[in-house]
């Protein structure tokens, strides 16, 4: 780092999914000479394989670059125009005959590229707490979308200064003027304040760099002398253990200091401090207003709470900074090892290793061992959303090398029961009460208990239950005006309540609903996209738990109830759901040597039934005597095909069938 004390700017890049945040970050890194042309690749901050394959950002990345800006000027020079590429330690040298001062004062830009997908919204909230400013990127062809608003409001609530940027103006279908009007209409930023850029061609980047330096305020001055640093992220590295990312608000930190986590009280020795440029570059210490990564021989992510405040053990601060709500897992499903035997055995051990290893890398999913009559030993995992669930499943298989059978996702229910408990599920498993500190712990009358249930199989005996409450969301859908009727109908069919409608532009409106989370976690997004020909966008947030007439729908396969197939559903939808579900099961469970009756039932009352006919004939005509190997190989193939299946009694059920639960019967 240069000797001159730089001005510091901390900001995040936020936007709706795919509006170009990561690409814009590429341009900032390139213009400031942080990555050489040789190192450059698209969305360089998306370093995980999965991020690159899916083309989306999953984890926020914080980087630091140095930049020169002449105060008052509206467009900056690029460092590439007068500097050589950085050397190993991150130092740049100016080309012969140039004085860097000609290009302005030195600025240290600490910025965070955030994910756009709704499942990873908590990453955005964390990032914003470490910043004074936010670049709000809006796609010039798509305009303001649901997550544009949600993320903009997050930033406004944190009192951040926002620079609206209209991106992708190179595209022929760009309509920057309309989009600027939409921004003014929905968020109140004057249309003429929007910067026009193309993260692809680099157009407008000089002006953006100037605005960053001009418009974003410097970090607030320290208010106490002791060290206070906010942990805004933590990642696990196979070699260095946990790396925490901190934003220092007060005091200073240097290598060798003993730090204390104010929330947990744990202490660690700092071994390494550095900045991502985006290559990690060591620094001896950091002062107020700066962000940095810190290694302190922390072995497990469990030892760190993101949102905690770091202080010095020798001279601790009195009061911690305000932290974050931990991310709340909203979607749950079970993973079981994909072997056809019942019980534990090697499959489970491998799965346990894989799950534990992954939790070191991603602390936002939860897991708990479970046992199911039908599926043996496995884990019940909690996720931030469906995309998150998908990603975890894929990483388990890919990085952990285990094949899993996954049950259908469900939401977490709150069940109000008579008495003080303890309560157990009908299967005998002890049930956990909702923490009274939970924001959703409400209206619990005396002599009753509120239980948390992540799976229909965990429901206690019906005689204890006063009511079942389900998570409710506020749902915002931005859609073309001519599709409003279709969207209304979709939401009302899914037990949604219409709340409000507001104007976005001549062609689009923003609709608000209150709707049960269970109704939107699976196919809702696809249906909404279908109805709006891809133009609609949505965002949701769980705001409360509400009781409704919810019942448990049991599915019996060959007269045995299979808990992994049970669902909690609204009484009025139970029959439709039940019929849809067993129709799907009928397609997916292969025919057996015997007839298999399928039934859907509420309590003892069967509300739908189907029968899977038995196989009439399954015998290869010829076993050509000489070539026994051939027949044996055919047999091996059949066995291979049954691997991803689970035996429930004498019936084998393929993995996909567990997803039949998701069939809404519509």
């Amino acid at each position, binding site marked *: 780092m240069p000797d001159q004390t730089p001005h510091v700017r901390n900001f995040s890049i936020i936007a709706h999914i795919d509006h170009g945040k990561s690409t814009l970050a590429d341009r900032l890194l390139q213009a400031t000479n942080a990555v050489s042309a040789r190192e450059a690749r698209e969305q360089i901050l998306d370093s995980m394989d999965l991020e690159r394959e899916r083309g989306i950002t999953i984890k926020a990345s914080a980087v630091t670059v140095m930049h020169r800006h002449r105060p008052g000027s509206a467009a900056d020079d690029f460092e590439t125009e007068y500097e050589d590429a950085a050397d190993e330690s991150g130092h740049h040298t100016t080309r012969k005959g140039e004085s860097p001062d000609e290009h302005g004062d030195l600025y240290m830009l600490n910025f965070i590229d955030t994910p756009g997908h709704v499942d990873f919204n908590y990453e955005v909230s964390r990032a914003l707490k470490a910043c004074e400013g936010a670049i709000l990127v809006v796609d010039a062809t798509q305009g303001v979308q649901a997550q544009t608003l949600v993320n903009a409001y997050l930033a406004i609530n944190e009192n951040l200064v926002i620079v609206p940027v209209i991106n992708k103006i190179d595209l022929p279908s760009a309509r920057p003027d309309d989009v600027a009007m939409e921004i003014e209409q929905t968020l109140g930023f004057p249309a003429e304040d929007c910067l026009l850029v193309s993260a692809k061609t680099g157009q407008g980047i000089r002006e953006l760099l100037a605005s960053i330096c001009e418009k974003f305020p410097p970090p607030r001055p320290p208010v106490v002398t002791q060290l206070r640093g906010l942990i805004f992220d933590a990642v696990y590295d196979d070699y260095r253990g946990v790396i925490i990312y901190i934003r220092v608000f007060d005091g200073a930190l240097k290598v060798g200091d003993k730090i204390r986590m104010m929330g*947990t009280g744990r202490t660690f020795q700092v071994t390494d401090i550095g900045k991502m440029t985006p290559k990690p570059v060591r620094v001896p210490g950091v002062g107020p207003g700066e962000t940095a990564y810190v290694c302190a021989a922390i072995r497990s992510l469990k030892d760190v709470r993101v949102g905690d405040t770091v202080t010095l053990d020798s001279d601790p601060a009195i009061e911690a900074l305000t932290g974050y709500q931990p991310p709340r897992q909203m979607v749950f499903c079970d993973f079981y090892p994909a072997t056809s*035997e019942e019980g534990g055995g*090697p499959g489970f051990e491998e799965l346990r290793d894989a799950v534990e290893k992954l939790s070191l890398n991603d602390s936002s999913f939860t897991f708990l*061992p479970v046992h199911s009559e039908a599926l043996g030993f496995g884990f019940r995992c909690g996720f931030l959303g469906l995309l998150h669930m998908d990603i975890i499943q894929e990483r388990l298989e890919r990085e952990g090398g285990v094949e899993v059978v996954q049950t259908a996702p469900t939401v977490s229910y709150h069940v109000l029961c008579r008495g003080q408990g303890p309560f157990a599920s009908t299967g005998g498993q002890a*049930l956990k009460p909702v923490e009274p500190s939970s924001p959703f712990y409400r209206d619990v009358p005396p002599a009753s208990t509120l239980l948390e249930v992540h799976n229909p199989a965990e429901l206690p005996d019906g005689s204890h239950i006063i009511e079942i409450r389900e998570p409710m969301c506020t749902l915002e859908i931005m859609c073309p005006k001519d599709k409003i009727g279709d969207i209304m109908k979709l939401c009302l069919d899914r037990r949604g309540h219409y709340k409000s409608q507001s104007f976005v532009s001549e062609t689009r409106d923003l609709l608000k609903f209150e709707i049960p989370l269970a109704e939107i976690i699976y196919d809702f997004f696809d249906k909404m996209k279908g109805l709006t020909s891809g133009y609609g966008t949505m965002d949701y947030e769980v705001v409360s738990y509400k009781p409704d007439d919810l019942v448990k729908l049991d599915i019996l396969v060959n007269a045995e109830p299979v808990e992994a197939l049970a669902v909690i559903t609204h009484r009025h939808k139970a029959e439709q759901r039940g019929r849809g579900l067993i129709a799907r099961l009928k397609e997916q469970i292969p025919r057996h040597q015997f007839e298999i009756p399928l039934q859907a039932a509420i309590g003892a009352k069967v509300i739908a039934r189907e029968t899977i006919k038995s196989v009439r*004939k399954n015998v290869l005509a010829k076993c050509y005597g000489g070539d026994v190997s051939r027949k044996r190989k055919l047999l091996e193939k059949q*066995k291979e095909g049954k691997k991803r299946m689970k035996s429930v009694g004498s019936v084998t059920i393929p993995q996909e069938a567990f997803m039949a639960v998701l069939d809404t019967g519509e």
Partner: protein
Amino acid sequence: MPDRTRTPDDQVYHARPLPVVGPRQGPGLASLLPRPDPARPARSLYVHVPFCYHKCHYCDFYSIVDTRDRQAPFVDRLVSELEALAPWSLGAPLQTVFVGGGTPSLLTPPLWRRVLNALTRHFDLSQIRAGEFTVECNPETVTPELMATLAEGGVNRVSFGAQSFNRAHLKTLERWHDPENVPRAWALAEAVGIRRRSLDLIFAIPGQTLGDWDADLRTALDLRPEHVSCYALTFEPNTAMTARWARGEFARAPEDLEAAMFEHTLATLRGAGLDRYEVSNFARPGQESRHNLAYWRQEDWLAAGPAAAGHVRGLRWKNAPRLDDYLRTGERGFAPVVDVEAPEPRRNLVERLLTGLRLREGVDSAAVLCDAAALADGAEDRLARAAAGQSGLGLLDPSRGRWRLTDSGFLLADSVILALAEALDAARRGPVGSRQPEVPQHAAEFPGERA
């Protein structure tokens, strides 16, 4: 001619290049096969003749449309292979010989004489008249001269590929013979004293009704055969038949009809005194094919000719299926073998279940369980439980110390075999519950953020 169904796996054989080594330096049979067991020399021999007059549409076996100029080089190579194989019989008299194809009856009588002479020269055929020497024939290719040549060489059994007596169904199969040819060939065999005669028939041909099939069975029975093989038409990948079906030229027989035909076959043939002794094979008592039984009982046999597969002391091998590759091995002086599976207890047991359960006699349950016990802890238990499950479903009869498919079990033979084979697999993965995880009675805390 029955379809010696070429498997999708045969593609693998094709893809596998033959070892290219200098002339006369290649691995001979001696380096590939185990030494013969003096106590149990091989007593059976299979010879494969790869020529056909025309390619039948359901056949996915590698056979080449006969061009007469290939026959002599084939016989040259065959004769040298027979010579190389002979040591495994240790000079003991052969009990069964089976010449299949392709269409062995397409070989010209002079070439046949060379084959028969070579057999007599290299093997002891002194007891074959009391044993079994079968040649497969396509009815339209049978001539008095051919029959005389075969009878003279010791052949005492012929198997005729009739397939159907209905012209329309023969057309669907693209079989080019006239149904009239069958009784004619039948009589020609009898005329030279070959009394053991078998017929191959195919059912579940697209468009065939149960009545049509019954008529075929009756016509076959009118010939008073000692042995009949009835195969359900199988749609093999990469055959003209399957391609035509995929194009929508016809519908496959519905499963219920196929099952009804399967059951009708048993009832009709049993009524005429031919009982089922294997899934698709029926014979009067004592007229079962002893050669085929040797396969299905895991006995040892030698094999010669392209695509032929042999078995000696648990080792299985297979010859190059393409005629060209087969011939080339002769030039270079090494064995025409392309695939060898060394003896392996688990595989041998699976194969025993696979072929044994397809037989009326079934398998010796105590022996099978004993072999399973030697494989892995718990394997015996699992296998016994699986067998009990199948017998509970009425598919397997466990009485009198054997496991035998019931009549309804024969319809589902593959499912039964799969269930038993899976039990052995489960055992391989180790005993259940060796390390059962603990399930917390109270879900105190999730690991992760809620520290």
